[in-house]
Every structure is written in C-alpha cells, then in structure tokens.
C-alpha cells in the first residue's frame, strides 16, 4: 500500500476545520459572559505550549505516529495500554461530535426525525472518508475550506447593522475567575483536542513544518471562533447568548439585508455539517489507526467500519437529553486533562531522557 501523504496546506486546513468544527454552533462556555473574547485569547495562549509539546513529540520521532511513540517510550505493554486510552479518547470524542450534530439537527429543524437516522447518515459518510484515508480527508478540507471560510465570515459584515457595541461592555469588570474558567473550557474544547492530530500528522509531507501547521491551524481556527463569538455577543447581547444552546445559529437567523438576504441560517448549518464531518472522520481515523497498531493489523482501513458502527452506537446512547449534553461540557474539561496535558508531557519528558541516555 502506498504511504499516505498530506501537504502542509491540507494539514493546516484540516486543523482549522477540526478546531472550529463543533465549536462554531455550540455555546460552549457561558461563565465569562461579555469577556468571552478575552477567554478565547487566553485559551489560545494557554494552548501554545501544548501545541509545542505535540509537535515536538512528532518531530522527535519523524514519520511515526503517537501510538508508535507510546510503544517506543513506555515499552510494549504499557505503551499498548496508554494507546488504548487514546483510542478510547478519540473514539469517544468522535461519538460526542456525532451526537452534538444530531442534537442540533433535532432541536433546530427536524424534531420528528429520530436522531438515530441522522447519526447513521453522518456516521456512514464519515466512515467512508475514514476508510478512504487521511489523504482524502486532506483533499476534502483543502477543497472546501475557501468556500466555507467565505460563507462563514461573510455573515459578520452582513450583520454589522444589528451589532451593538454596548453589548460587549464593560470589559473585564467581573472577576477574573470566570474568565479563566471559561478560558480553560476553551482550552480543552477545542484547542487542545488537536492532540488527536499526533496520531495523524506523521503523514505530513514536510516533517519540519509540524509545529507551523499546529500553530497556524489553531490560531486561524481560534481567530474564527473569536470573531464568531464576538459577533454573537454584539448581535444578540450577553443574556440571549448565554441562554441559547446554539447562539451562532440564532445570530445569523436575525440577519436580514433588505427583503432579499434573509433566513440565511442554513449557512451556519452547512458549515457545521462540514466541520462535524471532518472532525468525526479524523477521530474515527485516529481510533482505527490505534486499534490497528495495538492488534498489529497492517491496514487500518480494514477495521474502520466496525469501529465506526460502534461509534454511532455510542453516539446514540451517550446522552439521554439535550440538557445532559450541555451538562457534560463541564465534566469534559476535567475529563480531557490526562489526554491533553498529562500523558503527552510525560511522554515527551521520558522520550527526551531516553534519547539523552542513549547518546
């Protein structure tokens, strides 16, 4: 089988779409209120060292993905156990993303359609993409990104007339604590979720640019999230933004230019669909890579399908209501710490020590 290769550009775009994928519609953190933009900026800065850790891991073992690195660093057995944890993490994340989407669709427009159907449909296209490989996902993102970018951002100037600057004032009047807490939420979801790319980016054509891809992907994604969050607050006001499950959708819903451009919320739904598709496909791909590595299976594409089905299952049963889903976000930020911070940092340190001892 040919080795899969993705270009720097494709990698960056994949990362951007991964980062904004599900954050674009979910009102993830409400504590910071009108200071949400500060929280996002802080979260970006918080994630920089982690991005460095991730890319350092990859560049220290060129051409190897996280699962290989774990086995090499921790030995066969311990490495496999930790790999299993990452398989679970990406698998679980993929399921959550699928579920978020189906909740969104059900709440917003298709209340009578069972979520199972939406999950199956989306799951099948993700399965297809993950089975076809990371190259296809990379091409996909590079193709769709310019269009999506344009559609997503055009809504900002269009809703300019509905913005009220007063909504974002006063700046940083409330305590710093909620801002930091929000920042931490933003750090774990979505910025540090890019840890999943450590299992993917061994396919980058230019290995030296791994950090650049990480950095530019996250920063561009973060900037888009920032713009959209600020837009939401400016248009809707703090109270409504924090009340709503899907503030972006609502903010675009209020947009109308004359009688002609109105009811444009479908643009948000479209981009959300694309984002979710990319994110879930990458998660599924990462999970099946891990399983293949653990079980010593040569072609990971052969086992994508059963894992994909299991992911759909998990998505179906993971929450029993929309409220529960939004509750979970509070737990998630703690749940993600070991995967996003502890294990990568420890791995990097041990790897460096081993490297040092060897020489």
């Amino acid at each position, binding site marked *: 089988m040919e080795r899969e290769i993705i270009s720097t*550009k494709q990698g960056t775009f994949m990362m951007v779409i991964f980062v904004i994928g599900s954050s674009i519609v979910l009102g993830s953190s409400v504590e910071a209120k009108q200071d949400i933009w500060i929280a996002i900026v802080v979260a970006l800065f918080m994630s920089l060292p982690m991005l460095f850790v991730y890319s350092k891991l990859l560049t220290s073992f060129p051409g190897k993905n996280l699962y290989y690195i774990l086995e090499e660093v921790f030995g066969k057995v311990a490495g496999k156990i930790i790999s299993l944890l990452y398989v679970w993490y990406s698998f679980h994340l993929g399921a959550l993303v699928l579920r978020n989407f189906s909740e969104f669709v059900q709440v917003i*427009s298709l209340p009578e359609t069972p979520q199972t159907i939406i999950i199956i449909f989306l799951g099948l296209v993700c399965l297809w993409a993950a089975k076809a490989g990371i190259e296809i996902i990379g091409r*996909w993102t590079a193709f769709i990104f310019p269009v999506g970018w344009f559609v997503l951002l055009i809504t900002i100037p269009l809703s300019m007339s509905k913005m009220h600057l007063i909504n974002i004032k006063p700046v940083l009047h409330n305590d710093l604590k909620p801002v930091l807490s929000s920042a931490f939420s933003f750090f774990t979801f979505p910025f540090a979720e890019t840890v999943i790319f450590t299992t993917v980016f061994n396919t980058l054509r230019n290995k030296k640019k791994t950090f650049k891809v990480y950095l530019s992907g996250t920063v561009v994604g973060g900037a888009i999230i920032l713009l959209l969050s600020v837009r939401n607050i400016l248009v809707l006001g703090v109270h409504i933004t924090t009340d709503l499950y899907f503030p972006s959708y609502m903010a675009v819903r209020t947009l109308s230019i004359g009688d002609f451009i109105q009811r444009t919320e479908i643009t948000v739904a479209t981009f959300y669909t694309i984002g979710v598709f990319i994110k879930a496909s990458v998660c599924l791909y990462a999970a099946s890579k891990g399983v293949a590595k653990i079980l010593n299976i040569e072609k990971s594409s052969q086992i994508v399908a059963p894992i994909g089905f299991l992911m759909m299952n998990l998505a179906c049963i993971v929450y029993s209501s929309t409220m529960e889903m939004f509750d979970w976000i509070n737990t998630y930020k703690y749940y993600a710490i070991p995967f996003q911070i502890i294990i990568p940092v420890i791995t990097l340190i041990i790897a460096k020590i081993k490297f040092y001892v060897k020489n």
Partner: protein
Amino acid sequence: MFNRFKKKKSKGHEVKQKDVSIDYMLTNSLQRNIELMKEIFNSDDTFITRQFENMQNKNIKGCIFFIEGMVNNEIINENIIKPIVISTSINVKNNVIDSILQHVIFSNSVERTSEINKVVESIARGDTALFLEGSGEVLIISAKGWQTRAISEPEGEKVIRGPREGFTESLLINLTLLRRKLITPDLKLNYKVIGVKSRTRVCICYINGIANDKILKELNKRLDNIDIDGIMDSGTISELIKDSPLSPFKTVGSTERPDILAAKLLEGRIGVIVDGTPVAMTVPFVFIEYFQANEDYYINFYFSSISRLLRVFCFMLTISLPAVFVALITFHQEMVPTPLAISLSAARQIVPFPAVVGAFLLLIVFEILRETGTRMPTNLGQALGIVGAVILGQAAVEAKFTSAPMVIIVALTGISGLALPRLKGAVIVIRLIFLLFASFIGLYGFMFGVIGLLNHLFELRSFGVPYMLSLMNLDPQDLQDTSVRVPWMYMKYRPKFIALNNRIRNASEGGKK
C-alpha cells in the same frame, strides 16, 4: 464475496478468445494457391480474383486478389495489372518475384511474404495480393482506396473561434490531422491491434519527454488486457480501460477535434485513436476537464473565465436544484422568504402529488424529451418542442398535475444540465440520488449527498492521477486553469502529476513592455 464471484467467473473464462488461424501452406503452384484462397474466402462474393499473363512471356502468370470496394481500381489497373501484362523487361532467369517487385510494379508500398495468415489479413484490410506462378511468396501491394467522409466540423463540439476540422472514421486521416498540428519527431505513434474478430487498429500517441512513462505503461497494460471480439467505437475501449468502471464519472477523456487532442498531448496526456471512430480518447482524464473547452484557450481570458464559471455554476445548479427545492418546500419552510412561501403555497394548492413525486415525474419527462430529441430527425424537432413546452408544461400546470414553480425548477435543471453535455450521464444519477436524500432528511440529506459525492470524487483516480487534480491543494499554480483561465503568459507550467519532468510549457513574456 464479490471477489469470489469474480474469481469464479474468470476461471470459467480462462480459455482466451483465439483467432482462427489457417493451417494452410502456400505452394509454388499458382493454381493450387488460387484454390486455396478461394477456399479461405468461400462464400464471400466481394472477394475478387483476377488472373493474367504477360504479353510476351506466357510463363509469367499472375493472379491478384482483393476485396471489391476497398481498393482503388485505378491503381490496380494502371500500376499492377498493366505493367505486368505489357512489361517486356521481366527477367525470368532470376527470381521472377524480385524482378517484378523492383522493375514492374508502381506502388509505394509493397511487401513480400510467404505467410498465408498475413496475406489473408492484408486482403481483409484492403490491400491487394499478387500471386505468381512458381513462387511460394506473395506480394502485398497497397492499393487501398475506399470512400471516407470528408473532414468536417464535429457536430458535438462546435466552436466559434478555432480550427474547424474534426476527426473522421479513418485512422490514417486522423493521424495526419494530428501530425499536422505537432510537427516534431517527439510525437510518437504506436500501433496496436484490438479485437479478435474486428482486428481494429488502435494508435497510441504521446509526446516523448512530456508524457509520463508510468501512465504510458499502465495504459499499454490495460489495452493489452482487453480481450473482446470487436471494437465498434472508442467508447467500448474507454469503458474497458477506465478506473473504477462503476463510477458515473468518466476517467477517460474523449474528443473529436485534432486541436484538442494535440493540446492534451502537449499537456503530457496520452491519446488513443481508434480506427473506425472519429472520437479519440485521452488519458488521464481529470474532473476539471469536463469544464474546459478548447475555445477557452483561443478567446479572451475574461470571457473564457466567465464561461467556465458559468459551466461550474450550471453543474452545481443541475445536480442540486431539484433536491434543494424539494427540501426547502417540504422540510425547511421557514427558510423560504414569506412572500415566496405564500406564492409557492398558492401554486401548490390542490396539486395531487407530493413535491418529491412531482419532481421525479417531471425530471423523467424532461429526460424523455431530451432522449427523443437526440434520436429524432431534425425536422421533427419543432413538433417535439411544441409537445414538450405546451402540452407537457403548460397544460400540466393548468390541469393541476403539477405546480408552475416545479416546472420552472425542472426546466432550469434540465437546461443547465445541457450546458455540460459530456457530464450528462453522471448528472442524471447524482441529481436523482440527491433528490432522494433530500426527500428523506431535508437539506441535511442533501448535504450528506454532497459530502458523499466529494468523497467519491476525491477517492477517484484516473491512471494513478487524482481525479480532482489541481482542486485539492490550494496551489495558485494549479488553480490557473481551473474555474478561471489566467492569461497565457502566466500559464507557465504543465499540470502536476501528468507531466512529471518537463513542466515548463510557456516561457513567453506576453506583450509586456
């Protein structure tokens, strides 16, 4: 399971088709040879046998065989029979056949052979075979001369500006047309014969140094693997050699114009010209070529960019319009602006069919009209137009079989589909699939359909070249010749992947000061 199924099939198929070879030997006796030939071509009334003798030396007896209608009678009369009959300088002492070949026959292409199979095939191809008394060898004299269609502009690919010549059914004429465009010894033309019964000659043409060897090797391999009784059109070959044969998209290009073929060869593609068809094939074929027309490169780049964008837009329109419309009016009524919703609702009062069914029926009606239109004599076209527009359109709306907006949507869909005639097959399939998805879970279904379509397109390859070449990596160099065409002076490189080594195609600076 599918694999197993296929394997079994191939086992049963193991015996390859064989040419019926003839186990006769040529003898020195002319009479025997004539009988032999008559036996081979028995019950073929177009097979002509003509015996003659030299005027002076009655020992020089000869006989020519040819097939009526495939030869030029004048050449046979004047250049073969006449010189042999009246010649006085035939040296009988030496080999008669040598003497005749060298001193008597006026023909540019004469071949000596003693293999009867070759003789038979040459006669079947339109050559003339000359048998001589006392010789086990045969002279195959080229005196082909059948009627061919004149070179004319192809109906399917008309241009306003650009050369007006198109390929004909004759391989040699086609090669001439191509050769006249590319006067370089690097243009390589290799013959192959495909088809056990039809023995169709196929010519692979490429430019040495530009074409990718890997693709060439792959193409040769695939052509050699063809094992079929006859080839009537290049379409058959293209279906046999294309990647992912069940995809609705073509991965082998086709053209009737020598200028297009030449331009594609210059981009590093490889052409296949098939005898008997005016349609040449090019490989590899990538998606964006559907939207490129040869005229784009001859006319002003603003204009050609606009037409390209229009074609892309038409493609999107024609695959998605019915699906989006149905999704909007059945799932997402809130997304329709209120005045439009009111008029749509008004138009759809007491229409008996659900919107999806209506859309399906109308799309099928449109396809019927299109199909009848292509198969019908042109002078009946007007009647068809009247039937289609007035009876099926207007009357159906008036009778409340369908609503006027639906007719508009379907008409727009159909018309924009006609802007891309080469994509027609794929478009029909995709459109229906999208419509089904949309009728199932609304716009989300449509979006999943689009995602699936893109998955498929990105996965496709044509002879190892990604199908979405130059669209999958936002490289300014790649995007120069996609949905827009930049001025010629900026198009410096041949497409990636297709031309590997020799990538610079144009180093002129343009009229810059």
